[in-house]
């Protein structure tokens, strides 16, 4: 948490990047001082059109970089965990990752076990899907709080549910 650079006592909730004479500086202001400077920050998520939310510039540029044309990159369609992340951390992001990274998971399990067969206790209860209403509420909250990185990731999750209802 940073204090407002203008008044010095309120919590800064508006974070701007200022470019002057080729120098990039970050400016942190509270809502009041931002208004005083004529910076409008009111966002109504209803009217805002969540799907058209601007992607942070850096991400947009990163997305335009040509992908290395080697092997196809596996991505979990449900949580977005990709091959790189899985290789680096050894951790999966959700239950659906077990479908996305099946072959690799089998190999890992066979390092410690002779067989992949499951011989443990049984469990029966239906699985349920991601809670879209909950995610939409959180998206609104993230946008209101100007937490755009978080908002972008939640929006991706909502998109994946729409695209791929079976994956959950």
């Amino acid at each position, binding site marked *: 948490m940073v204090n407002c650079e203008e008044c010095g006592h309120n919590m800064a909730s508006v974070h701007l990047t200022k470019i002057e004479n080729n120098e990039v500086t970050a400016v942190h202001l509270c809502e009041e001082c931002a208004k005083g400077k004529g910076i409008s920050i009111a966002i109504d998520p209803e009217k805002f059109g969540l799907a058209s939310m601007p992607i942070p510039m850096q991400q947009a540029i990163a997305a335009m970089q040509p992908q290395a044309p080697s092997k196809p990159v596996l991505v979990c369609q449900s949580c977005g965990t990709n091959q790189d992340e899985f290789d680096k951390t050894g951790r999966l992001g959700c239950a659906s990752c077990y479908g996305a990274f099946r072959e690799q998971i089998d190999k890992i399990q066979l390092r410690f*076990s002779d067989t*992949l067969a499951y011989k443990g206790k049984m469990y029966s209860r239906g699985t349920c899907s991601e809670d879209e209403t909950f995610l939409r509420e959180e998206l609104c909250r993230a946008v209101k709080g100007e937490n755009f990185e978080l908002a972008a990731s939640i929006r991706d999750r909502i998109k994946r549910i729409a695209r791929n209802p079976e994956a959950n």
Partner: protein
Amino acid sequence: MIPASVLPAWLSGTDPEQIVVSSRIRLARNLASHFFPDRSIPAERMRVFSEISSAAASLPAFAEMTCCNMVDLSAQRRQLLLERRAASRKLVEGSGDRGTISTDNAALSLLVNEEDHIRIQAIGPGLCALDLWEHADNADTELGDKLEYAFEPSRGFLTSCPTNAGTGLRASFLMHLPALALTGALDQVLAGAGQLGFAVRGFFGEGSDAVGHYFQISNRAGCGMSEDDFIHETALLASRMTDYERSARTKLFNDAGEELAEKVWRSIGILLYARSLTLREFLSLSSCLRLGVAAGIVPDLTVEFLNRLMLSSFPAHLELAAGESFSSENADRVRAAMISKALSEII
């Protein structure tokens, strides 16, 4: 020094031999409808925590339990849970909504939003893994009725780390192996355990090193065998290592009894008169004292006393007893004074 009545279950053993100090059964579970904790957003962690704690609150098995969110606890309180083994290092050092639902003596705990949404763990003194499995299994069945676990019939329970997937079970045993260390056979025994496919860790589990000749051994795989078989195999290793340690002790007592007694009494001398003791120093000196108890070298000393002394020496317990927090140098002085006082009362 801490009274015996507040010792956690895993330190409540009184067997003077104490080669297997404690047993632990852990089951990893996740909720089907949420991303695994490391992937989930803060509000989702909060929601998972409340779903799990309200499910637990409605179940008889958890009636006596206290729910702690790490976010609400001071660093000292979190450390206290770690020292009692009601929490793990990852849980204590993590961020966001996460915590424990646990009995006072930490015999049964749920670790929430650690690496997985739920880790059910049962801990007890000595070699008692099958009883612990029964407790953990019952708690798991009850909880699984209220919640929706991520489960595939062909793969079993799905976990954040694929090596846990399947049963999600880890059976582990905290072993005290001083005689193997003193006779130089320890490395070979531990390497053997590794070659048989078991994991060997230090006192506080993952990432901790070997101090005071304590080691935790556990199974590695999650699939390919039933829970019972995993437990039997790991318990079999624990009892085989117990046999090795036992024969090393016999050899030591017979061939080098005088030297051992000298070593034990010198350790007592340091513990009685040192003005400053690190936890590490204390653990390695008390390791020698434990061996002295097993050999009957110091008749007034009991395992119960040493267990109370050990818990009282841990940083958060030390601070709690004193009602203030210390720098590490001060903690070393306070620890030395506490140990000296407690020992001088019985010796």
